[in-house]
């Protein structure tokens, strides 16, 4: 974990730089334990609870992707439902030709990523607000085009073939494992991406785009990479959604192209804490609790989620996790670096230590 810094102190003593001030070994074990517990969940709870967890895992995947976009690359997309929908259709279309939907999940991720490249080219030069609405328009265009194609159900949608005939509870469990795998890969992928060189590039862009650009950082390429990666994640989530619902319905209200999906992922990220990997996880839990508590009141959970997100965006910009982190200085997924003061050791009692991110 310890990285050797190129520079050293004037005294000749080497500088110590690590990913985290604390030992990440323990949090790694903890994450593994959580995954194992989640993996075993369908054996202990009923299919109802498993079904709810599938929903939560879909939103978790989406939220992690939106966090990568908005929190790390400054790309506020309001059109991520485009990739969710494309993913659903990339599971549906092979399934209509006899490919099992489980294999379709890979096609969904890759297909959505491939589609993201030309779409990126269309919106690449737009910034912030204009980028946001332009992605929204693109999602609308993709939906309108798909609704023209009658062989995939046109405007009414299609049931997903290839999964009928089995035990419903077994299918729910399989769906759950697929959703869990997608979510774990998504979060793990974001973590590794941010620890890679791209993460460093993104941090440079976030801190000062002009300076990064003039230092030779290929800003556009890094942003495109994030856009494509997020499309892959959202595509896979859309594939899971198709399997969960056993059908693919287009349309803006209630369908796979509903902006409600982007609202849920964005609100979860904002509430949980934008720009941290832990934030979307916490935000998704808040989302799931609200959604389950208020599920008999139609869309009220979304309204309340929106109000909370606005309040958090204005009054506690770092979200739940950011606020916790400020107080306790915990990082489960350290993607930054920590520069150790000379002579400082892990054992020393807590100082007002500042972790650089």
């Amino acid at each position, binding site marked *: 974990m310890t990285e050797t810094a190129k520079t050293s102190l004037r005294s000749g003593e080497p500088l110590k730089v690590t990913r985290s001030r604390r030992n990440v070994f323990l949090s790694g074990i903890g994450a593994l334990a959580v995954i194992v517990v989640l993996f075993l969940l369908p054996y202990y709870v009923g299919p109802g609870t498993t079904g709810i967890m599938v929903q939560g895992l879909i939103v978790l995947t989406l939220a992690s992707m939106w966090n990568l976009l*908005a929190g790390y690359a400054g790309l506020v997309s309001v059109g991520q439902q485009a990739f969710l929908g494309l993913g659903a259709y990339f599971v549906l279309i092979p399934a209509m030709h006899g490919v099992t939907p489980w294999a379709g999940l890979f096609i969904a991720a890759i297909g959505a990523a491939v589609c993201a490249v030309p779409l990126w080219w269309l919106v690449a*030069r737009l910034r912030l607000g204009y980028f946001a609405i332009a992605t929204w328009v693109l999602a*609308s265009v993709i939906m309108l085009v798909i609704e*023209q194609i009658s062989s995939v159900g046109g405007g009414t949608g299609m049931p997903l073939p290839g999964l009928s005939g089995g035990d419903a509870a077994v299918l729910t469990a399989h769906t759950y494992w697929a959703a869990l795998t997608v979510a774990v890969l998504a979060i793990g992928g974001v973590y590794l991406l941010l620890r890679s060189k791209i993460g460093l590039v993104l941090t440079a862009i976030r801190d000062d785009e002009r300076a990064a650009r003039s230092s030779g950082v290929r800003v556009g390429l890094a942003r495109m990479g994030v856009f494509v990666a997020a499309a892959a994640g959202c595509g896979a989530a859309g594939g899971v959604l198709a399997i969960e619902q056993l059908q693919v319905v287009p349309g*803006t209200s209630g369908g796979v192209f509903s902006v409600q999906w982007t609202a849920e992922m964005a609100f979860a990220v904002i509430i949980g804490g934008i720009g941290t990997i832990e934030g979307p996880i916490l935000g998704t839990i808040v989302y799931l609790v609200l959604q389950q508590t208020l599920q008999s009141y139609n869309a*009220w959970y979304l*309204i309340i989620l929106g109000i909370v*997100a606005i309040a958090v965006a204005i009054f506690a910009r770092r979200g739940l996790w950011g606020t916790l982190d400020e107080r306790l200085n915990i990082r489960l997924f350290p993607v930054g670096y920590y520069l150790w003061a000379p002579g400082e050791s892990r054992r020393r009692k807590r100082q007002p230590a500042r972790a650089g991110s």
Partner: protein
Amino acid sequence: MAWVNAIIQGLLTGGLYALFACGLSLMFGVMKVVNLAHGDLATVAGYIAVGIIAVSHVPVLWSIPIVVVLMAVLGYILQRSIIQAAITRGELTTLIVTFGLSIIIENGLQQFFTANSRGLGVGDSFITASFSIGSQISIAYLNLGIFVLAVVVLLGLQQYLSRSKYGRLIRAVADDREAAQLSGADYRHVFGIAAAIAFGTVAIAGICEGMITTISPTIGTDTILLFAFASVVIGGLGSLWGTLLGGVVLGVAQAVGAQINGSWETLAGYAVFLLVLVVRPQGLTSRGVQS
């Protein structure tokens, strides 16, 4: 002749789209705020008009000034409270706040007014009344009236911004907030005034949409916001006449698309939008660089 008719109808619809767009354009021009709740606020205005007409039985046209004033007040209050709070915290927060408002309004309207669409009864005689040029071109008075209204609103806004005291103040703050502040202008108040004007035009847009077709909770984004944005991009930033041109191009593209195939209406409009985005990203009229 059917094609000429389609183009004329599209041109008239374009006036409505320009009306959708001018509030969005104004708020971006002055405050650099891209108001994602723009379309939903227009829908709210439409529903307020429905409510006022149902309660007081005033004619639709009389409801316009009432709703415009109400929305202008709402605009000032919203701007001075949460939008201003968001602006000071950065562009990401502004987007989150306006996106949040959009989702809250859309779902709120769905809860209170159901997903059914409602019309603003202008009186059937006025909706269907039209005059004909030749045998195939017939122009409805309502559509023509809305086009004229759009031109009047844009012209009035242009004159207001270039001639009046507050207009100059708004342009000064839009150009350089700090310098205007140093010269004694309270930029927050000026932002509030600009938002009030923008919301006023939004109110007219929402009511016109309700008169020409119907309003439902989802049209705010599906139709108004996205068409407004497409008009702004096609026409080019920063020019109200560009916005009118953009609206007209979008309207004509949709009408021609619908003429080719009934279900291509919206797609044809977006096709032109994407074409402009690729070929001429600064818009048809603007010479500047896209921000």
